[in-house]
């Protein structure tokens, strides 16, 4: 599977994303600088990694969502290709409108780094097909702004459509409906606060994130 990892100034999980993708797919992803205006020829899967693009200044993900590469990503999403945004990547996906809602400051106002239990709420996506329904995973989170917000109508809609893919076991940040990750209506764009790329190695963070990348590989 040909994949690309987008690098913004301030991205800091780009190498982790690179290694996780390479480890699972056997092929190194292209590292695409935010000032590019096109994805490499033949790109299938795009990952927007975590970090602090533009220092998380103003609002997390806001400035990155206006960078030169974004129109290409939005167009790529429209083709139905898989796009995964993790942590800051999730924030960028909501800021650019590919996913509904917004990620606000954690309810306790503190940065939280912990291994957190999450459950797979929907295994019927190309990101989660390799998980068993309601599987309980341990995946690290590390964020200051992961408190998912959407208005009531939107929440009802995404719940009804099965767009919620991951839920926290013990809500760490105040997220509406314990939402830890969700897909768009078409099901090809996933945003999540927990870091699956930090959970693909028994020596580091466990292996509960592996099946996500394997699902993707299987779907390609």
């Amino acid at each position, binding site marked *: 599977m040909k994949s690309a990892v987008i690098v913004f100034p301030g991205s800091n999980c780009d190498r982790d994303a690179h290694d996780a993708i390479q480890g699972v797919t056997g092929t190194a992803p292209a590292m695409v600088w935010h000032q590019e205006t096109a994805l490499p020829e033949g790109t299938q899967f795009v990952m927007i990694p975590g970090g602090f693009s533009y220092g998380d200044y103003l*609002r997390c993900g*806001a400035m990155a969502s206006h960078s030169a590469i974004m129109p290409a990503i939005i167009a790529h999403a429209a083709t139905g290709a898989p796009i995964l945004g993790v942590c800051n990547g999730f924030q960028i996906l909501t800021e650019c409108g590919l996913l509904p809602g*917004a990620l*606000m400051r954690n*309810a306790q106002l503190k940065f939280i780094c912990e291994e957190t239990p999450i459950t797979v709420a929907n295994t019927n996506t190309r990101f989660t097909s390799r998980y068993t329904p309601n599987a309980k995973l341990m995946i690290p989170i590390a964020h200051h702004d992961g408190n998912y917000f959407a*208005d009531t109508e939107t929440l009802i809609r995404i719940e009804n459509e099965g767009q919620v893919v991951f839920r926290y076991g013990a809500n760490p940040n105040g997220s509406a409906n314990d939402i830890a990750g969700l897909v768009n209506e078409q099901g090809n764009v996933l945003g999540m606060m927990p870091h699956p790329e930090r959970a693909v190695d028994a020596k580091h963070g466990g292996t509960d994130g592996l099946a996500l990348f394997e699902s993707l590989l299987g779907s390609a």
Partner: protein
Amino acid sequence: MKAKIHVYLKPGVLDPQGAAVAGALHNMGYDEVASVRQGKLIELDLTGDDVEAARVRVDEMCAKLLSNPVIESYSIELE
């Protein structure tokens, strides 16, 4: 020219920062504080002096970048 932009959370959007500040003020004995909302203040220094043109441009900046319509509203003052 200067543009002063106030960005604040829409009514109905929970404001954890405001709530924390309110709690802290109560702990300090400021019981008259009924509620607190926290927003952003963004000041732009602008070249040019066409106020009306500037208002249109700044409004655009707010809609596109400086605020997030899902959770925030804004107001603009030009001086």
